């Protein structure tokens, strides 16, 4: 799942997937709230998990996203 999430982040922000790790923060990638919204939608579409606005605010790193998706997937 980490690889899939990294691929989505890489495509959404136009950055090299090879530079991304679980500890990477979205802030360090220069992602603003709209980039995050767009990425969240891709996560939702890919994994079938809905991520509301409040939860979105707590996801600071790529690892946070993986943990959230794992916890909320059926």
């Amino acid at each position, binding site marked *: 799942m980490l690889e899939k999430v990294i691929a989505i982040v890489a495509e959404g922000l136009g950055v090299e997937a090879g530079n991304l790790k679980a500890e990477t923060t979205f802030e360090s990638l220069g992602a*603003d709230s709209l980039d995050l919204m767009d990425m969240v939608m891709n996560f939702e579409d890919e994994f079938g998990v809905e991520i509301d606005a409040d939860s979105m605010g707590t996801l600071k790193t790529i690892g946070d996203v993986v943990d959230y998706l794992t916890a909320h997937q059926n």
Partner: protein
Amino acid sequence: MRGRICGTGSYLPEKYYDNNDIAKIVETSDAWIRERTGIVRRHIASGDETTVSMAVEAGRRALENGHVLPKDVDMILVSTITPNAVIPGVAFQVQAALGAAQAVCFDLSAACSGFVFAYQTAQAYIAAGLYQTILLIGSETLSVINNWEDRSSCILFGDGAGAAVVRAEEGALYPSLAGSDGTMGHVLACESRVQNGWQKKETERKTYIDMDGTAVFKFAVRKMPEMAKALMAQMQCTEADIDWFITHQANERIIEAIARRLKSDITKFPMNIAECGNTSSASIPILLDEMNRSGRLKDGQKIIMAGFGAGLSWGAVYMEWQAYKN
């Protein structure tokens, strides 16, 4: 029978606010607005300028561009959410100003999808043989319903009008689609002053635009590609075949996200949002007029025109650009 656009026109007020002007009203900055929205300027009606006056001018220019005389117009359809009079409707006042004595007139309220809904309506009337020469106008004075205390929304909206003349021609209808979801209406709302006690403080705030930006962003970014794919499937073509995606100018970041989802080059998505901001139902016809007059629209080009917004509402049409043959 189907309707063909034979002329376009538009009008933007001369006065504008740039981002630094907005930064004097609410806490924001030019850099932030440009990055988040792509907007640099938005035009603001002033003095005698109203939704009606702008509609009249855009309509006049469209008729001239299409070589159509006012007396030959049999319908005027104005899409607006900011009519400056409840009665008579904007379309009636446009009729009086232009001298289109034969026209049947009415206004249509479908927010940012309004021009596309009006266009689909015109197609239906023409296909049914009821009317032949229809003047479509999208005109808005959003500055009057802007909530200048809300920095997340007041940066977005501007004033202006766009118009197109649609004339009947032989041929099958091109595909179009539209949809609505009133259960999500609350995410982009503005109460009218036509209700008891609107002057009371708590009601008064709601008579300005109130938007859930996250919900609207997600809706627009998902819905528009869905519509485009449905139309391309009906035409049995792919994104590669489409020359232009002319979309409602809500936010540059929304349009970019839409282009990514369609795996399409951003150059196929013309934009004038930097100059105009979001002018609701005026945005598509203003953009269409700019593209027409600058010669960017060539015969044979395949276009998908799409609107989406409050209601929630959404609509898209496929068309092939062609000079009208008399």
